[in-house]
């Protein structure tokens, strides 16, 4: 970490996006995480993705639980809405917010402890309900904030900093998300922004529950030999199935690829996902195939990354529940609280 705020001096050719904002306009307060923490890189990737997508900061709600990872929303999108909930409860608070106002872009940021340990139930239900959100887990295999205890995603057999071996089986949140109905599922690595940024962009433009598991080394408690969440381990075992480019409707597609090497997926909002194949025969629209591939590779000790599954025609919770389109705060008191007569009518209709 550093104590100083970033100086507000810019390079003369600082790029601006369509809204006239610079990348720096999407930053937040100065991070207090340990120097070299993977989580800071993920924050930078979120900043870049929002800049690239011309996201209006006031249209984003960022929510988190508790943990080093859950602290990060303070360090990006300083002009967006934020809510720091209790440990493991980000999904339910976010679900409530999404129900009240569907116009915002919902970004849930959590840790492996926050989501796979205490918050596993909340995680599961947000996925299966189809909450329209981007759910990012900053996965370091430990409880960083409480000094490095193994979390539920730590691999069996991996060692902690003092050499103690983890004997519990790991939870793979990606496998769970696939099984529970997430319609955009990806895994990435904080140390590979070229892969991570497009994955976040695709998720922000996806309708339905998007889940990204980002392996994010804890330099302080889990970056040693024997860890399976260290920079070195992930670099050595990273097995990317594809590379993604997100093409917005306004951008012209100029690159050409050899036939068969590229998969185009059009999302509901017209944005196009360009997937360059890396693993032969990997089909990111085949949910069961994805689950199989994941298990096979995991058994070999590989960390499968890339856009693993996407269903571009998915619906979300609002469709399922047939909710009102307008945000509640725009409906007005009379509409929200139609009075005794309306209540009596409703009661009568149910008798």
């Amino acid at each position, binding site marked *: 970490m*550093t104590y100083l705020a970033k*100086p*507000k001096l810019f390079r*003369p050719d600082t790029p601006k996006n369509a809204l006239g904002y610079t990348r720096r306009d999407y930053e937040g307060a100065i991070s207090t995480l340990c120097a070299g923490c993977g989580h800071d890189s993920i924050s930078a990737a979120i900043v870049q993705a929002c800049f690239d997508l011309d996201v209006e900061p006031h249209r984003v709600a960022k929510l988190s639980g508790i943990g080093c990872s859950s602290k990060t929303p303070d360090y990006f999108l300083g002009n967006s809405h934020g809510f720091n909930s209790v440990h493991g409860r980000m999904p339910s608070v976010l679900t409530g917010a999404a129900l009240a106002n569907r116009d915002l872009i919902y970004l849930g940021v959590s840790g492996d402890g926050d989501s796979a340990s205490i918050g596993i139930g909340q995680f599961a239900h947000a996925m299966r309900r189809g909450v329209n959100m981007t759910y990012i887990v900053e996965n370091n295999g430990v409880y960083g904030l409480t000094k490095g205890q193994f979390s539920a995603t730590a691999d069996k057999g991996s060692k902690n900093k003092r050499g103690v071996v983890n004997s519990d089986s790991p939870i793979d949140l990606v496998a769970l998300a696939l099984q529970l109905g997430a319609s955009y599922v990806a895994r990435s690595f904080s*140390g590979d922004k070229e892969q991570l940024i497009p994955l976040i962009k695709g998720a922000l433009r996806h309708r339905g529950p998007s889940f990204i598991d980002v392996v994010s080394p804890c330099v302080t408690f889990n970056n040693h030999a024997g860890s399976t969440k260290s920079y070195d381990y992930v670099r050595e075992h990273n097995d990317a199935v594809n590379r993604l480019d997100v093409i917005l409707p306004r951008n012209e597609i100029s690159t050409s690829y050899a036939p068969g090497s590229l998969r185009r997926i059009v999302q509901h909002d017209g944005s196009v996902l360009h997937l360059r194949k890396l693993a032969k025969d990997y089909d990111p629209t085949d949910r069961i195939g994805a689950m199989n591939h994941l298990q096979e590779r995991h058994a070999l000790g590989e960390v499968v990354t890339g856009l693993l599954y996407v269903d571009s025609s998915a619906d979300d919770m609002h469709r399922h529940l047939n909710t009102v389109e307008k945000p509640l705060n725009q409906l007005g008191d009379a509409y929200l609280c139609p009075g005794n007569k309306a209540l009596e009518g409703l009661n009568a209709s149910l008798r």
Partner: protein
Amino acid sequence: MKPTDIGAPDYFHKVVDCQWACPAHTPVPDYIRLIAAGRYSDAYMINWRSNVFPGILGRVCDRPCEPACRRGRVDKEPVAICRLKRVAADFKDDILDRLPPIPARKNGKRIACVGAGPASLTVARDLTAIGYHVTVFDNGKTPGGMMRSQIPKFRLPDSVIDEECDYIVSRGVETRLERWVSSLRDLLAEDWDAIFVGTGAPRGRDADIPGRQEAAANIHIGIDWLANVAFGHVTSIAKRVIVLGGGNTAMDCCRSARRLGGAEVKVVVRSGFEEMKASAWEKEDAMEEGIPIHNFLVPKEFTHVDGKLTGVSFEKVRAEYDDKGRRSLLPTGEPILLMECDTVLVAIGQENSFPWIERDIGVEFDKWGMPVLDQATLQSTLPKVFFGGDAALGPKNIITAVAQGHDAAISIDLFCRHKHLLDDRPSPLANLVSQKMGIHEWSYDNQVSEESRKKVPSKNLDKALRNIKLELELGYDLRMAYAEAERCLNCDIETIFTNKACIECDACVDICPTECITFTANGEENELRGRLKAPAKNHDQALYVADGLKTGRAMVKDENVCLHCGMCAERCPTGAWDMQKFFLKIPHAGTEVRKE
């Protein structure tokens, strides 16, 4: 790209933009930090070693450092490097006991310096300090050369010139003032071990157009007139004055005329306003004093009645550029413009002239009348005669004269010791020292100030215009000096990268406020510049490239807009980045060649 050799003394020297741009390579950030720390005498001495005349230069330097200053690339204006130098001079204590001792035992070598301008005085200072007996000749009453005879007192008071010339001439230098050297042959016959010619570029160019002879009484050559003003021979001027020319001499002429009774003073230049030779700040100062500048006008004739000047007629022109970018001024065809006036000051250029140097004694001159010199050693074709300052290169400025004085002194010393002037020349010494004091603590103030440049306070203009001797600028007070000093980005505190320690966590990339750092596949320079996190478009600034990383990528840092804030080093979990102070010792006469 090949990995950068950061051990090469020039690599980081170029990163310290101001020091690189300064002809004498003054360690600018070093003295600016000392000013911020309130150590004015220390700041003065750093300057004194490099540029010899800190108080003078702190007022009138041409300041090539400021357009080069990195701050100007990330902020509206550069650091006020020049005026901070004046702060060091204004607030220092008595520094006499800090001046290097003059050896009591001389080495027996006698050197003559012709002219007592900044070039000669620098030679004299450097050589007396190592045991030479130096004699300075000048036709003037006091030393200083054009610093004294040309630069108006409202920019540079005599007291400052006296003080800084005194640090040299009162310490073992022999002066022969009011002595015009009329023959180099005779001087050579006096058996000096070496002779330095620092006689400047003393002749003002004339405007040879109709009416010049007839109206001569009211037409003056700018530099002659300024010298007469400086020495009090001229104390007034007519009401309506036209100054011809667009350089700094023209600016000094018009501003002096304003102070001597010229109520309607205007400057007329051939070129466009933008292309004028005068520094931007000189033009601003003149205009602030109510002097209009008319451009694209070529003087055609001095009009006169009964031997009295009545005005100047001008032809209107416009600039045209050919495909090579060369400019020509073409008449617009508009009618001739007549401007009435009582006096004209001609400030359209300066020339060298060496009437006192015989052409058959072995000192060769080229077809432009300039001495033929070895560019590096400043030695003429007659081995014991050296040139420097305006006499060597034509009219330049004080700091260039000083820099050449240092170079000539090194050559003279080597020459007198029968060493080779090039092979035995000492090279600069560079070293790097870590500035880390603690986890987030550095020995320098790495928090970047966001304040804008402080304007130097001046005296009341009405009052200043009534007295030509009254120095206009007050200089910074200490509060302003501190704020201005804090604007310096400490470009000499370098980012040093150790590839072995890097775990490629991207922390430095993410924190860097100006997006200088990229980890990417190495490539050919031009192509690489294009695909950095922020494309590196300024080709004058280096890329720092390091390879040997685990992923096979290269670390590429664009030095261009690095703020030297140290945030990369603070964020680095492994200490792969460190902030190290680059110190460059520029050799002066007497420095030995480094033993490898």
